[in-house]
């Protein structure tokens, strides 16, 4: 037992309760880094969630009602990692100016 004694000054409470980061962070919009966006073919998508796991900006999630993947235009930075990781090949890069939506138009880059 003696091996597990922690000196008093190093004691920390076991764990803490923090609010989960469930909301978006409007101070760090990355949507304007994008030159191409991934466009999904819902017919071919198997909802395997690879894109959800690999997206560095958590821009894909599964809508449980429609059972379709949903993409976030404000934060997708166009790295196209999801396309690389999609086993069903149902994502395709398309130039951003083909779409009228997804405009973030920030006043300053930082």
């Amino acid at each position, binding site marked *: 037992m003696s091996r597990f004694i922690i000196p008093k000054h190093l004691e920390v409470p076991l764990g803490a309760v923090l609010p989960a980061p469930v909301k978006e962070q409007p101070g760090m919009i990355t*949507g*304007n*880094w*994008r*030159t191409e966006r991934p466009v999904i073919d819902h017919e071919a998508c198997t909802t395997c969630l690879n894109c959800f796991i690999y997206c560095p900006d958590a821009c894909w999630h599964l809508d449980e009602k429609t059972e379709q993947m949903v993409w976030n235009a404000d934060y997708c*930075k*166009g*790295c196209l990692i999801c396309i690389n990781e999609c086993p069903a090949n149902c994502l395709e890069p398309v*130039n*951003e*100016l083909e779409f*009228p939506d*997804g*405009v*973030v*138009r*920030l*006043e300053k*880059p*930082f």
Partner: protein
Amino acid sequence: MSQEVYEVTIWARGVFQDMEGRHASLLMANAADLGGKFVQAWDDYADLPDRVGVPLRKYVRLSDEEIEMRFVYVNNNPNLVVIMDDTIVKGMNILRGMPKGGSLIVNTRRTPDEILAFIPNKELLANIVCVDASGIAADAAIDFMGSEGGVEVASVGAGISAPLVGAASKVCDMFDVKNVVKVAANKDGVQKGFDSAQVKAL
């Protein structure tokens, strides 16, 4: 502040256009310098170090008199805005601070009207110039030397900056296309950019 100083803001994409953006600012400054103007050209310090695809700013100031705007490191009222990648128009308010009657140069395969659809404050513009600089400079080798403050006088203007600045000289009378050709590495590209630019007056 008096508006005798002609301000240029260049928007480029981080990392893969960082050097080209800087070259565009150097080309304008060098060409205007040959024409006897007073010049300044520099990068936006706050935008660096850049990350892939992040919108970056590069600046130029051109004037007939000595430029006395010391310790001001951003162009708050650009008369000319250059966009090195057309998709930036969706992500930034690129005409912010522009005095009425400014010019916009865009590297794009699209037409001026297609670009204007993405610009809500287009009443500030006197004209817009679209040029397919990426297409013109496609065969020019792109390398990352000269990124992050390196100085490479011999190869300034080898890529997309050459046709873009050539096109810019169509609407900007602070530098002449002949002088841009003199200072750019890709002289053909400057001339092609000048010749193929689509100008639309507003």
